[in-house]
């Protein structure tokens, strides 16, 4: 039983995700001509929030209090199970694409419930918008998953990754390219980035993700922010692992894991920087146009599935 790999993955994701957010904000700041607060700012923010007293609004229930924990826990499970660093892991049997996507969705749903639990108009509004987007994103995620698993004959992430490692050429197949675009759009929507949601807005009426967590403060908010950063890392990590699994260790030796960790950090950082750069040139879509974008990504997913049968 190899428990080193899941533990290492959790440590890398938990420790690295605020830095990823810091890098993305710094890249954006520099491209916009601002000095930026530095890469370590998200960690400093978390430290500040963790020192504050816990406070919850009157009238909220356990749903509100437990949601940050569940969100963080589901994200950590996904981080532990996915073959980010090595394909040989104690959690390999549960590293099923459906399972990982479902676990991540559970986190989003719990957060939406917490938004509803506050009883405020903003919480409800954010939850309603988040669920609308989630309902449109899930089919795309599943379609892209189908497309990738057809050839391998398994939805196990380890199996898909191993197959790609043995045959790197398939990354450039039409199936793979269609699926990567579909998945990328889904990831952007799921993690609340431009053009679907604006993570840096202060306008409460336009928010999606931020509207749900408006009532959180102190350590709870720190947990939510941290979990959100980890979700971003996990989604980008999945994208990197599925379509560019290079550097992933096939053995569990410490040196191979260290190398894999460096490769993982590099890949996720490259994807994060690319996203940050793209965001500089993107504006936020009108809310009612978001379904059009997501329908487009679903279509690409569908084409990827079709291609996987016809071009196999």
């Amino acid at each position, binding site marked *: 039983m190899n428990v080193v790999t899941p533990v290492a993955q959790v440590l890398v994701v938990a420790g690295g995700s605020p830095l990823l957010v810091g890098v993305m904000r710094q890249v954006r700041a520099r491209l916009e001509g601002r000095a930026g607060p530095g890469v370590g700012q998200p960690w400093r923010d978390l430290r500040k929030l963790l020192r504050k007293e816990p406070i919850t609004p009157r009238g909220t229930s356990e749903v509100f209090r437990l949601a940050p924990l569940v969100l963080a826990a589901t994200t950590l499970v996904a981080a532990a199970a996915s073959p980010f660093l090595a394909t040989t892991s104690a959690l390999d049997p549960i590293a099923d694409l459906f399972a990982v996507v479902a676990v991540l969705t559970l986190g989003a749903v719990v957060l939406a419930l917490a938004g509803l639990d506050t009883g405020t108009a903003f919480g*409800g509004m954010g939850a309603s918008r988040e669920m609308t987007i989630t309902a449109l994103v899930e089919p795309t995620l599943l379609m892209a998953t189908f497309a990738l698993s057809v050839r391998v004959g398994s939805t196990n992430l380890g199996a898909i990754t191993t197959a790609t490692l043995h045959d790197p050429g398939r990354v450039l197949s039409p199936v793979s390219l269609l699926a990567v675009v579909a998945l990328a759009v889904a990831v952007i929507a799921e993690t609340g980035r431009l053009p679907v949601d604006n993570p840096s*807005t202060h306008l409460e*009426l336009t928010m999606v993700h931020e509207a749900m967590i408006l009532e959180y403060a102190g350590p709870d908010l720190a947990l939510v922010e941290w979990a959100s950063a980890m979700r971003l890392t996990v989604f980008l990590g999945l994208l990197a692992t599925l379509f560019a699994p290079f550097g992933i260790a096939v053995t569990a030796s410490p040196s191979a894991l260290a190398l894999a960790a460096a490769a993982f950090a590099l890949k996720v950082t490259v994807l994060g920087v690319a996203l940050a750069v793209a965001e500089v040139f993107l504006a936020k*879509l*009108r*809310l009612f*146009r978001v379904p059009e974008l997501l329908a487009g990504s679903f279509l690409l997913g569908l084409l990827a599935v079709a291609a996987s049968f016809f071009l196999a």
Partner: protein
Amino acid sequence: MTPTPPPGEPAGHRRTALTIAPADLPMHAEALLEKGYRVALVSGHDDGDRLRAVYLFTAGYPDRRVELHVPLDRADPRVPSLAALSFPSGRFEREMRDLYGIVPEDHPLPRRLVRHFHWPQGWYPMLDDAGEPPAFGDVDGPYPFRTVEGPGVYEIPVGPVHAGMIGPGHFRFSVVGETILNLKARLWFVHRGVEKLFQGRRPHEAVELAERISGDTSVGHALAFCLAVEDALGLPVPPAEQRIRAVLLELERLYNHITDIGALCNDVGYGILNTQAQRVRERLLRLNATVTGHRLLRGAIRPGGTRVRTRPEVAELTAIAMDADEIVGLALDNGVVRDRFAGTAVLTARQAEDLGALGYVARASGLAVDARWTHPFVDRGPQLTVHTHETGDVLARFLVRAQEIPTAVAVIAELLDNEDLTSPFDGARPAEAGEVASGVGIAEAWRGTIVHRVEIGRDGTLRRVKVVDPSFVNWPALPVALADTIVPDFPLTNKSFNLSYAGNDL
């Protein structure tokens, strides 16, 4: 059009005044409105033994201003409401009732406007014997919001405390899904008593106060105030100094318009253009500081003259305008930005006209409303064009601002260059006989037409100053434009109007 001479006795710069009985008010008002006048200002006055309502009507081409003075019984002050004739006058009447207790009879919406719900009943702050404000508490009955009912309708209350740096306003949305059915904006959370603060000051001591009515419109309010004081006292202003005032007015327009252009881009998530616009704004603010010694152009305009340190460099302003033009071009080239702007929150020309909208809000809806044309204090040069658009949406309000930037620079160049542009102002004339001298000042500030009316006593102190910021007139246009718009487009729409909370809530 050959205008018939306006009614009444000459009272000031192109201004006549007529004292009438309350019962005659609707007849006179209707005759003036039919001749193309608009209600520019309605103010209450406390004359000791009686109260007085003053209605100022203005019209352009040529510049005409008519005042109707209505003396009222102090024990039972009542005027017939003009709300059915002019929407803005209905709002002015509610303001006057809240501040002076002058009751507009048969008003269609006889509710509080300026005084907040928790202000004590029966206390009118502008009366001379009002005294110190009593404690809050004596609540004036329930003041409910209109409830919209139906399947799936719910309310979103927002504010008065917001997530960003915004003035205090409470917005109550009645919504189905994401579509706004009804919006009620309740403002007036921070009444400062500005008009009362003017009273008893000498005019030259009150300019600082005028500059702080609305911080981003220092020049506009200071200018309107000084024009009113000069009108009342017959103070001459050298033409060169009038031209410098017009230059300052355009400088204020420049830095505010570029700020709004950046903020509109920011509200659709296009942050890079906002940071670039902020950079341009900073250049302008530094230029302002070299010209007047103050980044917001304060301290330059005084009754009777204008004092600046240097004149602005036209070459630098031209470079800034080109910079701004590039930002505008980048915004409009982005398909998503254009999609968010176009067709969002339409205010039709008919609606704008009925509401008496002013400034870029009116111009974006196709009304060529501009006091630089209708009530000039400096002769108009050929560079001054009025930019209008027909669509009345966020894009139109964006484009009007964008086009006014190069025009403002061209106007500044012309004003600095052209000695022939003189002031149509009458110049020195003996101060009015009688107990008080009155004056009216009209200026087209960046948000729209500002009107000040002052009354100065024999002792040379201000007896009454009435301030009308265009925001007071334009605020009701916002909910009208938002009908059938979706909730996430509200912040963008609000920014495209960019109305002042401070100028509205004096």
